């Protein structure tokens, strides 16, 4: 069971109040992009054992989308943060580094 804190309404709730929205920080490649970029955008996903970044929605609550950084192995949540960002903020990266030194995920570390 995951315990997540919604950064918009400040509620700390358990998993059933939220809904997972898949991998975070995916850059969209739309019309005019190369086939390779479009394929990557549509299909290529991380499947890590460890640090992972996801989108979640506070569906039985304020309804907002947000980001979460967590460990897929231990279900530890390192932190949640705003959806209005292209990359994890420094405090989230620092929190992960404190627990999982040397971590990396896609272009982030």
């Amino acid at each position: 069971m995951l315990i997540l804190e919604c950064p918009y309404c400040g509620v700390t709730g358990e998993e059933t109040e939220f809904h997972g929205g898949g991998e975070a920080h995916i850059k969209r490649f739309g019309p005019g992009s190369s086939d390779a970029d479009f394929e990557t955008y549509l299909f290529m996903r991380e499947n890590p054992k460890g640090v992972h970044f996801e989108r979640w929605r506070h569906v039985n609550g304020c309804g907002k989308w947000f980001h979460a950084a967590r460990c897929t192995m231990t279900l530890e949540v390192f932190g949640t943060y705003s959806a209005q960002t292209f990359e994890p903020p420094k405090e989230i990266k620092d929190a992960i580094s404190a627990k999982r030194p040397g971590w990396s995920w896609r272009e982030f570390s």
Partner: protein
Amino acid sequence: MSELRSALAGAVFDGIAKVQEAGLCGMIAFRGDLSATKVKNAVTGVTGVDMPGQRGCNVGGDNGLAWMSPDELLIMVEHDKAELVLETLAKGLKNQHYMAENVSDARAVFTVTGKHAAEVIAKLAPVDMSTFSVGEIRRTRLAQVPAAFWMHGENAYTVVCFRSAADYMFGILSMAAQEGSEVGVFG
């Protein structure tokens, strides 16, 4: 004119707490910039209660304001005043971007009262009721349906859900309040 009727016409269940359908309540879903002075003045003007902060819920009589999200409020008024309030809001919010919709008849409202009221809610919602207090609103789920609740007094909770889920809500609240089912966790 058609006869107005709330979802369950005031149905009551008495057990370890009293569950009652609250009848017709006026409710307006409001979206806009909650930090704008014009918005604050308009919504507090039509309700006569203070502007709520994050997860706040200020209620006075039939009127109230509940914080639903960073850009959404629930405006509570008397059922027959809702349309009038929409007009008043429109006047006060000229040239201000906002959305307001009368959702009074799309909602069902219940009260859960009595010594074990918090326990009844705690059995159904993934919420720590030991720290929940007056002036707070919690949007969550009760069993399998979305709902919101707040305290309108000592051991007294108001629960709001979609009208289509009213029968289900009354059923689960009554079941959680059945005689002899008290757990006694909240003293």
